[in-house]
């Protein structure tokens, strides 16, 4: 990839709808994830097999992360956060397969993922606090903050999108430049760095999704402070 990263190449037309390669790759990743999940959970047993141990380890790690970040029961968020993490990780690492560009290196995939987080934040916030409570949360420290909070909803979604796009796209771009300048073996260290960046970005994307959803679900810290001012005061100096 050395051309414009903002251009999408149409692979084929599905009726009137053009299907780009990023869409095809992301559907392939989704199919692989679903197939893998179906195969891995087909024969669950009390005495776990090796696959099941790996699966349980993964789910427990995701649960622990959700619990640590959001301080709530992870069960309602496990599916969303886990899917986001696994999909972004698989998408970032799919660049290793020859001939495949990571779909997250295109702006549309990241925009869709950030949109999912944006709407999930609203849905979980409404479910946890009700319409009145959720709307009141925008005026959290004071009425003066309403425009800022509204703007923040948009800007943080935008930055979520641009962060993932920029990181993955720049990695792919650097590999392309190294390949065109130097040759066959030289891009390998960059690709190894890409693996690390891809994993970290997948982690960060899901952690930020957790933080946003957690902020919508939880009462914000200033409104929680009057409940236990003495204990929080005592905890601060230590």
């Amino acid at each position: 990839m050395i051309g414009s990263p903002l251009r999408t190449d149409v692979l084929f037309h599905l009726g009137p709808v053009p299907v780009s390669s990023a869409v095809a790759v992301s559907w392939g990743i989704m199919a692989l994830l679903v197939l893998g999940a179906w195969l891995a959970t087909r024969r669950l047993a009390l005495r776990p097999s090796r696959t099941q141990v790996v699966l349980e380890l993964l789910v427990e790690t995701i649960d622990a992360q959700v619990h640590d970040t959001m301080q709530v029961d992870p069960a309602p968020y496990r599916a969303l956060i886990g899917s986001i993490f696994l999909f972004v990780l698989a998408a970032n690492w799919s660049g290793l397969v020859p001939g495949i560009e990571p779909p997250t290196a295109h702006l549309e995939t990241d925009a869709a993922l950030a949109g999912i987080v944006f709407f999930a934040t609203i849905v979980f916030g409404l479910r946890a606090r009700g319409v009145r409570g959720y709307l009141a949360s925008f005026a959290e420290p004071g009425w003066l903050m309403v425009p800022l909070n509204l703007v923040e909803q948009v800007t943080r979604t935008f930055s979520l999108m641009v962060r993932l796009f920029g990181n993955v796209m720049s990695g792919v771009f650097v590999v392309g430049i190294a390949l065109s300048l130097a040759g066959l073996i030289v891009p390998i260290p960059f690709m190894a760095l890409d693996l690390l960046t891809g994993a970290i970005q997948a982690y960060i994307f899901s952690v930020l999704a957790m933080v946003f959803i957690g902020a919508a679900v939880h009462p914000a810290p200033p409104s929680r402070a009057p409940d236990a001012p003495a204990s929080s005061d005592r905890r601060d100096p230590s």
Partner: protein
Amino acid sequence: MTDLIPVVSILAAALSVSFGAIGPALAEGRAVAAAMDAIARQPESAGTLSRTLFVGLAMIETMAIYCLVIAILLLFANPFLK
């Protein structure tokens, strides 16, 4: 005169990446140094610290990524270059 726009665009792209990288680089250095210091003092809180550090680094890095995106826009999707 039309040749001026590509030249200025390339210059602006290079400048935006180079100057845009300075601030986040210094900030990330400070953040990592502070986190290392905290982990050295309290190794038992390394998990929480590194998670917060990663999120913070991502936030700081976003500034550099914005500059990169501006540079990419200037180079590949320049609105003044038709």
